[in-house]
């Protein structure tokens, strides 16, 4: 119980519970650490009080991602997701991963 209060290895608590399978008359639930970066980011944005949701936007997601005016930007990137946030000046948040 104390381990749960401290958090796992000092990391942000992104654990969730799911399933309500009953074993021997007691309600048991499975806890897991969220590893999907999209869900982690979405949960973080909602935690900041923003109305955010994952949405598909082909125009943004298919690129191009860089103009290469700034030379340090990578050549190979992969689109992860597009998150829309209502009430903001930007149209969406696009998450990219390197490689």
């Amino acid at each position, binding site marked *: 119980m104390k381990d749960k209060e401290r958090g796992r290895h000092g990391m942000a608590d992104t654990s969730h519970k799911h399933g309500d399978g009953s074993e021997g008359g007691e309600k048991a639930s499975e806890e897991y650490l969220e590893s999907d970066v999209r869900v982690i980011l979405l949960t973080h944005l909602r935690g900041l009080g923003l109305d955010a949701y994952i949405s598909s936007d082909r125009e943004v997601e298919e690129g191009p991602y860089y103009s290469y005016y700034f030379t340090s930007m990578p050549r190979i990137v992969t689109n992860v997701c597009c998150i829309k946030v209502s009430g903001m*000046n*930007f149209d969406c948040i696009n998450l990219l991963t*390197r490689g």
Partner: protein
Amino acid sequence: MADNPTTLHTYGALPFYQIHFVVKGNGKVFEELLVARTRKRVRGVISKSVEDVWWEGGKIAERLNNDTRLKQLLLTILKDDDIFIDPVENAVRIYSRFKIESEVTRHLSREAIEAYNIIAGHVRSIMKEFE
């Protein structure tokens, strides 16, 4: 065996992420006005403190430099980072450097979101003005 430039690396995507704040519109039309990046003066090596932040680039850099609230926010959020405004064909992308997987959300504080929102507002106003 000849190298095929279209072949992707076998190790796949790396755990480094970059968050782009996208303002839609033809950025290429306004690229001379909108290309900009931050520069900063930092004191200290191990415990860094940002003493001054300013923008370099096109017309938008003047406006961003005159925004006192934005400067105040950037002094708190830009420790070892920079913000780039990059106009591409179908959008204007505002982003900072790549972050490792565990630090993606740590850098995205309430102040950072507000700063990106202010920058996007300036981008949008310039795009409207020079349309």
